[in-house]
């Protein structure tokens, strides 16, 4: 995915947008078959502009989710839970 395809030669419309979106989500979720991956990533993505854009959008959303939507447990809560369990064990 590092080489940017020649945008002028790409299709500007995708006749299977819905199916393609589903397949690309399967790929990013690690749930796609080898055939799906080969076809979509090696062939389709290089020739289809809407899917190329969609792919990068999906990747960007996932990255944003990971960087912006993770809260760590407060340390005092973690300590408290440990303490309670140790008390339980001592019983």
């Amino acid at each position: 995915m590092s080489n940017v395809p020649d945008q002028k030669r790409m299709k500007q419309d995708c006749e299977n947008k819905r199916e393609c979106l589903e397949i690309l989500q399967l790929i990013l979720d690690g749930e796609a078959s080898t055939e799906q991956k080969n076809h979509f990533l090696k062939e389709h993505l290089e020739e289809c502009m809407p899917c190329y854009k969609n792919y990068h959008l999906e990747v960007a959303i996932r990255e944003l989710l990971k960087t912006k939507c993770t809260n760590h447990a407060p340390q005092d809560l973690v300590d408290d839970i440990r303490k309670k369990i140790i008390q339980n064990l001592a019983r």
Partner: protein
Amino acid sequence: MEEVIRQQYSEQEKQNIFNQEFMPHINSMYNFAYRLTLDADDAKDLLQDTYLKAYRFIDSFQQGTNAKAWLFRILKNSFINDYRKRSKEPSKVDYQEVETFYNSEDVDRQITPDLRVEALQDMIGDEISNALNSLDVDFRTVIILCDLEGFKYEEMAKILDIPIGTVRSRLHRARNLLKEKLSEYAKSMGYKTT
């Protein structure tokens, strides 16, 4: 659910399992609790309840199986049983209805993303977090499990007690809804969406 085989762990084994298999997931678990309850105090209580329950039922945990999925399932069930009822959120629409609605082709066509990567890159504040939090809890949950925690569909199906097909369709719907929210933000930030 598959049959639960009860183990009989020694006190030392229990302690090892708790420290080595349960505690490493505490940040992910807290985040899940926080995103479900949308309240820091409720998240604390829910997390604490879940860990105490996990300890109490440790004999039904089988070593070598996925501890994270096991813990997430307990947390999700505790949330439904103890928190959802008294949640501050307004009463939920019937989500079966919501899912049927979002299954229709019309809606899919309507919300083909008009969102651009450049707009996302400028969302450096709480936009994405707010967008995620604004989704109905069932849609929010699948995004957290899949995109934040990296669970496989099969694991999600077990955590949520729903068929894999439902995991897939709910995830698809959830992502469309999230994109819809994000493109609203993009519009308000002055990005043109065509």
